[in-house]
């Protein structure tokens, strides 16, 4: 049904932006983590966003019925990747993770960059919430038709 799938579009974006926010929070929380499960310091994580091309039975059926080329499906996070950029060496010989020269490899997390990303995620979340409320208002008004 058209009403519900429209809400899904904004809903998928809200989910994606929230996940992005979680990943950013994780990056900031681990800004000085030098030991991880995989060994080595923490690496900054990033989300990969992609338009959601729906391939479910329902969407294909709807496409056939409406005979239009509609692939309106919102957005999805396809994977979370690690930033492979250089780690920053910090001189701290007393650190248990320091190497022979006394340097500790610190995570490649840049707090400024993370803060900026967080702001843009918040703004995107707000924009999607506005869209969601607009759709909701329209659908609610449509229900009052003929009263």
């Amino acid at each position, binding site marked *: 049904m*058209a009403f519900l*799938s*429209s809400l899904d*579009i*904004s809903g*998928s*974006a809200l989910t*994606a*932006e929230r996940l*992005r926010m979680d990943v950013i929070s994780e990056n900031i929380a681990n800004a000085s983590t030098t030991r991880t499960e995989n060994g080595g310091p923490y690496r900054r994580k990033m989300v990969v*966003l*992609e*338009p959601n091309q729906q391939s479910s039975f329902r969407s294909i059926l709807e496409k056939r019925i409406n005979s*239009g*080329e*509609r692939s*309106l*499906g*919102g*957005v999805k996070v396809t994977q979370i990747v690690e930033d492979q950029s250089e780690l920053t060496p910090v001189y701290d010989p007393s650190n248990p993770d320091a190497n022979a020269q006394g340097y500790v490899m610190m995570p490649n997390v840049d707090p400024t960059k993370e803060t900026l990303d967080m702001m*843009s*995620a918040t*703004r*995107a979340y707000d*924009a*999607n919430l*506005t*869209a*969601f409320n*607009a*759709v909701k*208002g*329209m659908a609610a*008004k*449509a229900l*009052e*038709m*003929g*009263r």
Partner: protein
Amino acid sequence: MNWLDSASINLMNKDLDGLWTRQQAISDNIANVETPGYKSKQVSFEDQLQEQLSQSTGNSDLVNRLKNTQPVTTVSEDESLRLDGNNVDVEQQNVELARTQLNYMYSLRELSDYFSRLKYAITDGKS
């Protein structure tokens, strides 16, 4: 005259359909505001309806023409100013969303009033 299948009711129907489709496209654009390489979509239907209005030869012809009109979704080819190749302008999309929403409510009111008038006539002016 056919009350429930008149040209005006079909026009309002297609108007609402088109606005809803446009709203879906805008939601999709806003959802993909951070997706690299995404190009924004637009929906046009007013021009098509206008064309049918100007080309029709009679009332029943117009009704048939209106029924066969579908909103058209196009993908913008505009160059992007952003490094990630995305050309969604959130401010513009927000303005469009507000415009679509108001237009939708306006058309709904119109359709509602049409039905109220019918009801008024059916009940002999007693409701």
